[in-house]
């Protein structure tokens, strides 16, 4: 009786411990077989497999040829592997996925290493995702990477980075070109990070310029970071 109880308990525990994401995806047998080497290698390397399944399922939904799906999943696994290396040691799954996305849009591995230097384990994902989001919005990857790494190095919180992203979005919707919007908003964030104690005084004395015009000579001269 006791052994049966322990066996049931073990079975339940193992069942709960198995990642739910890999249970949710069903692929046809031929595709599953084609993907199996990539998935097995990724699991052996300790990479999260949910994004790989999601990529495969995305390809199925989009009616992509099997070879293309296999190639895309393998490429994602490679990017995750590379991201984990750059975000070592002990990158979380979310950081690995965010790092892979950043690499996909053209951010360099060096940038991931830099973000890791300034962000402890578990907090590097959002800066990288904001970088990728800005790149998708039309900012050159190098400019997005530079702006975010400087902000992170300057002590910007995740909330400030997200607010930066939202500000750029607002400006772009008002007609400002994305690179210009990011440059201007980054300057504002830099000033804020450099002089938080003087923020109220600075705001009252010299309010910033409008974002809806193309950049002109501002009344506030930014300090060099």
């Amino acid at each position, binding site marked *: 009786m006791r052994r049966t109880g322990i066996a049931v308990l073990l079975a339940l525990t193992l069942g709960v411990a198995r990642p739910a*994401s890999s249970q*949710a*995806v069903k692929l046809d047998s031929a595709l599953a077989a084609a993907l199996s080497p990539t998935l097995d290698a990724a699991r052996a390397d300790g990479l999260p497999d949910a*994004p790989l*399944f*999601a*990529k495969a*399922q*995305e*390809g*199925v*939904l*989009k009616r*992509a040829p099997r070879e*293309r*799906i296999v*190639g*895309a999943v393998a*490429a994602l696994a490679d990017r995750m592997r590379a991201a984990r290396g750059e975000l070592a040691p002990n990158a*979380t799954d*979310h950081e690995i*996925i*965010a790092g892979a*996305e950043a690499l*996909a849009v053209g951010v360099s591995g060096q940038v991931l290493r830099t973000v890791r230097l300034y962000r402890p384990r*578990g*907090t590097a*994902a*959002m800066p990288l*995702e*904001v970088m*990728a*989001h800005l790149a*998708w*919005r039309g900012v050159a990857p190098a400019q997005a990477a530079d702006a975010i790494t400087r902000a992170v190095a300057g002590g910007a*919180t*995740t*909330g*400030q980075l*997200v*607010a930066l*992203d*939202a*500000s750029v979005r*607002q400006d772009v919707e008002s007609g400002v070109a994305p690179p210009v919007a990011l440059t201007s908003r980054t300057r504002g964030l830099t000033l804020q990070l450099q002089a938080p104690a003087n923020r*109220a005084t600075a*705001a*009252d004395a010299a*309010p*910033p310029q*409008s*974002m809806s015009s193309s950049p002109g000579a501002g009344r506030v001269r930014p300090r060099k970071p």
Partner: protein
Amino acid sequence: MQNDEIDSSLQPLVDRLRELPESDPRAVKRVLARIRQYDGRPNARRRALRRYFSRRSGWWAVAALVLFAAGVTLFARAAVLSSAYESATLIPLVDSGGPTPVLLAAENDDSLSTDRLVARKFTIKSLDARQVALVGDFNQWNPRRHRLHRDGQTATWYITVQLPAGLHKYAFIVNDSVWTTDPSALRTVDRDFGVTSSLVLVQ
């Protein structure tokens, strides 16, 4: 002649392109009606606010600021828990002479786990849809997981989904056959499969 200039072969085309369309006098009225409906008079509203606060004595102004800051805190907390990304993070710009703006952002969230779930509402307008599904990397691109609901009065379809904080790709599938990106969101170039998706950063 430079390659980017108009020569005699292109001049007739450009002349036709430069013809202005017939003007519709009602069109301007429609624009103004939409603006009145929106009731956006930021300058007038801001001036009225300035006049109001400048007439009050010091301690009333302080009390109002304290209450406003407390209200902002409550709103920011609620925004983190339940609202869309935009309502938590929009930053008003400062006009010369205007009040110091307040950033309606979440609190310092470096202490918050990025693995937490955030409620995100997806909407799309479609006049000819009989059903709309949401697909994305958060539901394994499965059109059976998240079916949108239709607003009975309008052609708006909607669903609120709990998503992990971070970047997500998604799209809508209308009537089980039409792949549609979200017109209000960024689009991605799909280098893997060649079919564009939408992109959202959830926080």
